[in-house]
């Protein structure tokens, strides 16, 4: 794939990549024309609704649907009895693998409910009111069981067991007894005891974070239609139509080829729309009723039954020499997985120390099931949580050593050639440059006022590549259509069109990107892992290069010269053969107009498994002011630098940085799942689950560092979407700690918590 680097198209001065054109789908998005998940309607469609568990943990003794079925207008009711009871089988996602049995049991509870909000039955009726009435008439008899929502309580001996057959993996010997601990992850290097013995200064502290939700504004929504021929259609908002297709087929016991999934516009996902919740239910209801079924979650359902990411405990011990060299690090992570195994503790462990070159370390991560919704991926899954602990500890260490926050990171920074804490050797990284641009910024060099504090933190994310397909079709007018299989979650259509336009030499207005259904384009892994501009972009460029090669060949044919006598320059074929000096360059338009004479339609496809995404590094600086009377924290100023390789559309890259920062600020200051004594989420709405609003934030300055382009990508792009959420938790907490003179280790830093810390300090 790296051969593309040597093509003339990549070496010519860029005219489109790096500029800021209006996104191709822009008009649709600002006029209300764009059709999201809930905007699709089918003739004769029914309304589907879900009955959810009122208990955090209970055995399902019986389900009686007879009274609901008798209600006029009710067309179908399904329970776990309508789905195959699947065996355990791991399926790969782009960032995490899932057990399909767990996935199925999360979609519809069988025998036991494992969290408040767990689906127990679903109804399809001619109206929402009738469906709701039917839900009220379903009688479920439960035997309520003791529950556990806190991660450390779930790990303790004698804790209520969620799964009788869960035996901890990753231990040296299989444990004799089942527990809630699904897995132990461990990463070690060097000799920890020796490292700490050599340290002049040691800091040690326990940190914790609460479960937080991705908070996409669009609730999950789908329409499913079961065909009489057994072929079915699903229209839904997701991060990957192919993933939805695969999971639906598994959960329903169907052939993948029987399902076509058409992607709607997606109203935010952040990792939370990488799995199925409603789609298999809607398909089952459609099969049972013979009608298309539309299902849309309420916001309360989104909070209670989808996402979130883990709450976690992070214990960090760091040892350093007087000059700031960190010689030993010990990190222990305990993560809530929710009702089924699979918290992001593995990636949290792998990223925890990834910005540092430390000779001796031990990182241990525990994946723990709890009676809370099954966690889903959330932007750089796990990394913000471990980074919160590590970056807070590094801040404390720097203070003890009398070093500034950037100096200690520079001292211990990974560079090209450093072996990463998680294994590979870094190449083409610009981490130290992200530190430098912050150090040189006006922000870093501006003094603070009273009650104000400044916090700094860094972050790392792997980014992923993977399988993508793209097709480029040239129309008879010489315009291009670029087809991919990746839902556009934040403006990726723009980058796809720009990369194609750059390669073809067309103006951006003549390239129209589209996202196809599962039958109309080859397989593509989902939109996640910050992979689309890198991996799918690479496929787009390769398809466009094939088109260019084809166009050169056609020009050569028309001119009767050898193909190597034709070059592609500025969107046209140019003849090099001195004997044919009279041949005027042929534009795409001219070649397209005579395509029938030169071999037929002009079209090409590339299907690749992209390798070498290039990791992302970020450095964030945050100023806060704390109101000493109320404990309210205001973010005054924020500057974020990031190693982006090369920004294809800088505005949308800045947007990723700014959006990640805003989510991280919310996570740091206000957002949390609050559970009552019965294990019910108490704040399942946007009023009480307090996400940042416009008046909570200042302008967010994004500095894009382009000093280390990714050599594997034709234009140098690295993934950019996830790493910006990694540093903010610690950047904000370090700023608050500096402002009030008290280390704040427990998120969120909501006003009562900050006020309590201030009161305790005052004595």
């Amino acid at each position: 794939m790296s051969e593309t680097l040597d093509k003339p198209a990549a070496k010519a001065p860029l005219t489109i990549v790096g500029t800021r054109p209006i996104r191709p789908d822009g008009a649709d998005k600002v006029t209300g024309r764009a059709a999201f998940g809930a905007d699709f309607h089918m003739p004769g469609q029914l309304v589907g609704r879900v009955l959810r568990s009122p208990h955090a943990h209970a055995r399902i003794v019986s389900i009686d649907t007879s009274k609901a079925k008798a209600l006029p207008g009710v067309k179908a009711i399904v329970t776990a009895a309508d789905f195959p009871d699947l065996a355990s089988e791991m399926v790969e996602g782009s960032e995490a693998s899932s057990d399909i049995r767990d996935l199925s049991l999360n979609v519809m509870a069988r025998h036991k409910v494992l969290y408040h909000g767990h689906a127990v039955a679903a109804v399809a009726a001619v109206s929402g009111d009738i469906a709701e009435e039917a839900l009220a008439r379903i009688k479920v008899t439960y035997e309520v069981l003791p529950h556990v929502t806190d991660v450390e309580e779930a790990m303790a001996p004698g804790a209520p067991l969620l799964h009788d057959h869960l035996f901890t993996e990753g231990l040296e010997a299989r444990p004799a007894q089942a527990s809630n601990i699904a897995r132990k992850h461990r990463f070690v290097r060097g000799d920890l005891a020796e490292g700490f013995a050599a340290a002049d200064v040691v800091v040690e502290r326990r940190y914790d974070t609460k479960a937080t939700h991705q908070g996409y504004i669009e609730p999950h929504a789908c329409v499913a239609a079961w065909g009489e021929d057994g072929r079915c259609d699903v229209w839904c908002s997701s991060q990957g139509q192919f993933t939805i297709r695969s999971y639906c087929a598994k959960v329903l016991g169907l052939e993948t080829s029987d399902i076509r999934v058409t992607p709607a516009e997606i109203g935010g996902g952040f990792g939370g729309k990488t799995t199925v919740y409603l789609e298999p239910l809607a398909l089952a209801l459609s099969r049972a009723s013979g009608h298309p079924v539309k299902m849309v979650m309420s916001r309360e359902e989104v909070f209670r039954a989808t996402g979130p990411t883990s709450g976690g405990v992070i214990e960090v011990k760091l040892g350093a020499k007087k000059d700031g060299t960190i010689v030993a690090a010990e990190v222990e992570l305990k993560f809530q997985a929710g009702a089924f195994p699979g918290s992001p503790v593995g990636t949290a462990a792998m990223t925890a120390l990834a910005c540092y070159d430390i000779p001796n370390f031990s990182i241990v991560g525990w994946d723990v099931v709890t009676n809370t919704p099954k966690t889903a991926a959330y932007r750089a899954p796990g990394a913000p949580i471990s980074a919160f602990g590590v970056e807070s500890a590094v801040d404390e260490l720097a203070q003890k050593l009398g070093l500034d926050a950037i100096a200690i990171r520079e001292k211990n920074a990974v560079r090209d050639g450093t072996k990463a804490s998680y294994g590979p050797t870094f190449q083409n990284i610009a981490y130290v440059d992200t530190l430098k641009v912050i150090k040189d910024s006006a922000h870093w060099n501006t003094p603070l006022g009273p009650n104000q504090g400044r916090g700094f933190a860094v972050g790392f994310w792997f980014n992923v590549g993977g399988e993508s397909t793209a097709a480029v079709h040239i129309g008879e007018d010489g315009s291009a259509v670029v087809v991919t299989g990746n839902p556009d979650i934040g403006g990726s259509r723009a980058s796809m069109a720009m990369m194609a336009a750059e390669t073809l030499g067309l103006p951006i207005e003549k390239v129209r990107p589209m996202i196809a259904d599962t039958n109309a384009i080859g397989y593509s892994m989902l939109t996640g892992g910050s992979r689309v501009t890198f991996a799918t972009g690479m496929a787009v460029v390769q398809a466009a290069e094939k088109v260019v090669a084809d166009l050169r060949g056609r020009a050569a044919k028309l001119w009767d010269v050898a193909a190597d006598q034709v070059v592609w320059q500025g969107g046209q074929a140019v003849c090099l053969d001195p004997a044919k000096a009279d041949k005027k360059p042929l534009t795409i338009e001219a070649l397209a107009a005579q395509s029938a004479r030169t071999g037929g339609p002009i079209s090409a496809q590339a299907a690749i498994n992209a390798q070498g995404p290039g990791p992302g590094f970020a450095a964030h600086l945050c100023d806060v002011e704390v109101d000493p009377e109320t404990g309210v924290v205001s973010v005054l100023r924020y500057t974020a630098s990031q190693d982006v390789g090369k920004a294809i559309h800088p505005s949308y890259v800045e947007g990723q940085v700014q959006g990640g920062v805003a989510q991280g600020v919310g996570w740091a200051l206000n957002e949390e799942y609050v559970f009552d004594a019965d294990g019910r989420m108490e704040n399942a709405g946007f009023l009480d689950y307090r996400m940042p609003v416009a008046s909570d934030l200042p302008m967010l300055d994004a500095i894009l560092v382009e000093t280390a382009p990714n050599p594997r990508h034709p234009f140098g792009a690295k993934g950019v979407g996830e790493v910006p959420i990694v540093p903010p938790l610690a950047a904000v907490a370090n700023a608050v700690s500096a402002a009030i003179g008290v280390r704040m280790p427990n998120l969120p830093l909501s006003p009562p918590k900050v006020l309590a810390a201030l009161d305790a300090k005052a004595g």
Partner: protein
Amino acid sequence: MSKIHVTTTVNGDSAEFLAGPGVTLMDALRDELGLTGTKEGCGSGDCGACSVIVDGRIVCSCLMLAPEAEGRRIETIEGLAQGGQLHPLQQKFLEHAALQCGFCTPGILMASKALLDANPDPTETEARYWLAGNLCRCTGYDKIIRAVMDAAAELRQERVA
């Protein structure tokens, strides 16, 4: 329960529909009139995705009953562009890349229009507080605020001209 016949004005044209007494204006716009540009993010008035303008005031259409629209003048996102021309707010949102997924965008545009109708020269702080009822999870609001301020400046110039 029998449905209520509602006569109202939507984006300058008269519109009629039938709605149950408990149906929200949001559902009537989306399901009865097919105007799905108005989005539902929460159904409880917390996210602003369903913002429309009723008799010049911004409202969450999920908190207003459809029968209450009788005789009112309703503006939705579908009416913001006039005569095939994007409204300056729409244009500035595109120029500033003030949207990512675009789901909150219709509500934010309508709220921004109501702001600029009421206050043609808002400060950044005023714009931020006015839009505090509209959640965006993608952008961090930076580019949204810049787009609104830029559109305000352009609209002021247009008025002078």
